């Protein structure tokens, strides 16, 4: 075993083609951001799956806690007036 530090973990996001968003596709270990990009190319785009890659060191990601899903996401459930179907219009109204 060496006394040096292990390569940190990076999250990889790939844009499959222009017009689409970058999507998380997995993670990998690399010494720095340049190596993370090169490794991401080899690990996640061997069959032309991407035209652009983002890498970010995993420790920089802040994630919401699923245990707080209730207070975070439940309030949206009873806001039906945010959806078009909430509004009653006569059938004669077209293009709306």
């Amino acid at each position, binding site marked *: 075993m060496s006394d040096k*530090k292990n*390569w940190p973990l990076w999250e990889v996001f790939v844009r499959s083609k222009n017009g689409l968003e970058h999507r998380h596709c997995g993670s990998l270990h690399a*010494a*720095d951001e340049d190596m993370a990009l090169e490794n991401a190319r080899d690990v996640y785009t*061997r069959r032309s799956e991407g035209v652009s890659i983002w890498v970010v060191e995993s420790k920089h990601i802040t994630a919401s806690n*699923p*245990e707080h899903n209730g207070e975070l996401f439940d309030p949206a459930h009873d806001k039906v007036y945010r959806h078009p179907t909430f509004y009653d219009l006569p059938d004669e109204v077209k293009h709306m």
Partner: protein
Amino acid sequence: MSEAQIKSLEKQFDERIARDEKIEPKDWMPEKYRKTHIRQMSQHAHSEIVGMLPEGNWITRAPSLRRKVALLAKVQDEAGHGLYLYSATETLGISREEMYEQLHTGKAKYSSIFNYPTITWADMGAIGWLVDGAAIINQVPLCNTSYGPYARAMIRVCKEESFHQRQGFEIMMKLANGTPEQKEMAQDALNRWWWPSLMMLGPTDDVSVHTEQSMKWKLKRKSNDDLRQQFIDQTVPQAELIGLTIPDPDLKWNEEKGMYDFGEINWDEFWQVVKGHGPMNKERMKARVGAWEEGTWVRDAAMAYAEKKRNRKEKRVV
């Protein structure tokens, strides 16, 4: 947490899975679920990584450039599969180093099939056709497994596997249609790989442990015996098509059942290999541990270089 609270959480958890909901890394999960997944997923990753060794053996000696680029791409895919699976396993809270440690000390297992030697070029054909073929049968149901990161990794893996099997079958087909010596070489490879491939689908249902729990968590969707039958039924006609003979005198189509009957599997051999007494167990671990240890200075140098670059950048900013 009280025992009653845990029981109720576990019940809700199982209900979520029964409703086909996925479990994601930060969700609460029973300790047993976490442990079982770490074990199965890391073993799966180890198998992909060790699985590169028998085929890597033939890359420099492939008979043509076409065969060489295909084999190289296949072996590179297996490295990729190992990496998808390691990173998916890390989401359960085990580090990459810990997993390597378990592999290198023999605490973690990998698929026994990779403890057989690859002595001729035809073995590249037999492995792609039979070993990747059996792996596909094992893996396709896992694309729907309950743990999100595992299911997503398996979808990628399965998409890539079908080329592996086709390139293997093509090698066998070419040899089987070649000179008498080439055909003999193909038959010999089939003779050696057939039974270990059947064993790859796991012990028979009557001795297989923790199947019920695994079924509930969708780590398993079909029993080992069903998977094995599926493998045999789809592979036998493929062998016939290229004029090779399955090395099983008891193999016979059963009209009534609509499937093949087949001979006794030598489970003694299977358990011997699992316990470390296969022909290549020591060799494989030596190669794997050697690669890791000899790479230490490269990993250290890359970290030192990364640090130096970072420092230089910071200085420039100041």
